[in-house]
């Protein structure tokens, strides 16, 4: 009976979580990438704290809470080619769910799956006080995170693990149009998730857009040097995820499509960026009883060397 319950729980909970979504970005937008340059020989260090809450209105009353830190190092190999490494660390990934035995909580923590990617500026048009750039990017995610952690109920559901146990690949293109007063970024990204031990996260396609508008100083007239800029941000993410693969089939209660909007603020100096956004769901179309986002808070900083 315990095994049956465990099996049923695992099956139902398999839809509960998706990848944490730690942003792998180097520059301007807070939730995704940019085409702005990393100068040759320059290193950019970024830390981003992610607090994500998810829930559903189903009978199991599932609640998922994630607290993670995304650490990113970027390096300019040439003026057009930059490489990045991303290490997610999960302080806690927790699932609370109602079962016939009562409310239970399951959680884990640790280093997640490390990603490496490269970005190449394929098109660049610079003009006075602005630039337009297009840059494809390609990367892999290595199975460095634990994918078979256990608790007193047995092995944790695969979506709750900090790693998926498989090599994943992603590719996309990002475009940036930047002027002194504002900046716009757009990104199209596809992530193909590998399969390990009978499980694979559903593949993901996402379209992101960002507008950053300088609100202080509002005018640069009469200002010499390089003052710090404060930007108001509004970012949009349209994300579609396929169903997770389990054994020989797919999990009907996983994946779907969601649209998130993220207002935020960003303060930029020559050496530092400090930023924060809150992503809120505007529309969600989950498959079956797939769990949905309540909010995602992202705060962090960047530093160049």
């Amino acid at each position, binding site marked *: 009976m315990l095994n049956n319950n465990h099996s049923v729980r695992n099956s139902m909970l398999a839809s509960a979580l998706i990848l944490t979504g730690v942003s792998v970005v180097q520059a301007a937008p807070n939730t995704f990438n940019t085409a702005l*340059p990393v100068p040759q020989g320059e290193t950019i260090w970024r830390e981003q704290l992610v607090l994500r809450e998810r829930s559903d209105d189903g009978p199991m009353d599932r609640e998922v809470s994630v607290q993670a830190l995304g650490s990113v190092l970027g390096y300019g190999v040439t003026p057009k080619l930059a490489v990045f490494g991303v290490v997610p660390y999960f302080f806690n990934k927790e699932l609370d769910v109602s079962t016939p035995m009562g409310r239970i909580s399951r959680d884990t923590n640790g280093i997640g799956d490390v990603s490496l990617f490269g970005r190449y500026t394929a098109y*660049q048009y610079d003009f*006075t006080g602005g*630039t337009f750039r297009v840059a494809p990017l390609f990367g892999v995610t290595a199975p460095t995170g634990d994918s078979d952690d256990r608790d007193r109920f047995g092995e944790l559901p695969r979506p709750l693990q900090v790693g998926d146990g498989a090599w994943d690949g992603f590719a996309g293109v990002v475009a940036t149009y930047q002027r*002194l007063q504002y900046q716009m970024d757009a990104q199209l990204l596809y992530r193909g998730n590998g399969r390990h031990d009978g499980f694979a996260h559903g593949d993901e396609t996402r379209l992101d857009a960002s507008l950053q508008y300088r609100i202080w100083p509002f005018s640069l007239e009469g200002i010499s040097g*390089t003052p710090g800029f404060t930007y108001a941000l509004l970012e949009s993410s349209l994300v579609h995820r396929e169903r997770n693969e389990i054994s020989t089939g797919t999990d009907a209660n996983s994946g779907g499509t969601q649209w998130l909007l993220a207002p935020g603020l960003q303060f*930029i*100096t020559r050496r530092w960026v400090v930023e924060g956004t809150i992503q809120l769901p505007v529309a969600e179309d989950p498959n079956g009883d797939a769990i949905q986002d309540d909010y995602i808070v992202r705060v962090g900083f960047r530093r160049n060397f």
Partner: protein
Amino acid sequence: MFTKMSLLLAALVFSVSALAAENHYRLGVNGLACPFCAYGIEKRLNKIDGVTEVRVDIGDSVVQVTLKEGNTLTEEQARRAVDEAGFTLRSYAEVDGETGGGNAE
């Protein structure tokens, strides 16, 4: 008193001559539109021998470079540094006196 005055005069003469001997350049840079990006240009230009000061006026898309006496910045050096930072050199000019005194636009 006489000694103090002599030292003060010597220091003044020395500082004025040192200032006058510096070489100043004004670079127009296209593609530069945020403070975080400006640091890359400063870093590349500061690697050039003799550079004592790099000042980015982001609102004007201009970079002012100061070099010690006897050191010069060629257009090719400037172009390479700006390229390596990921931007495009729009204009190059040697200017007289304090940085900002010339206009190469």
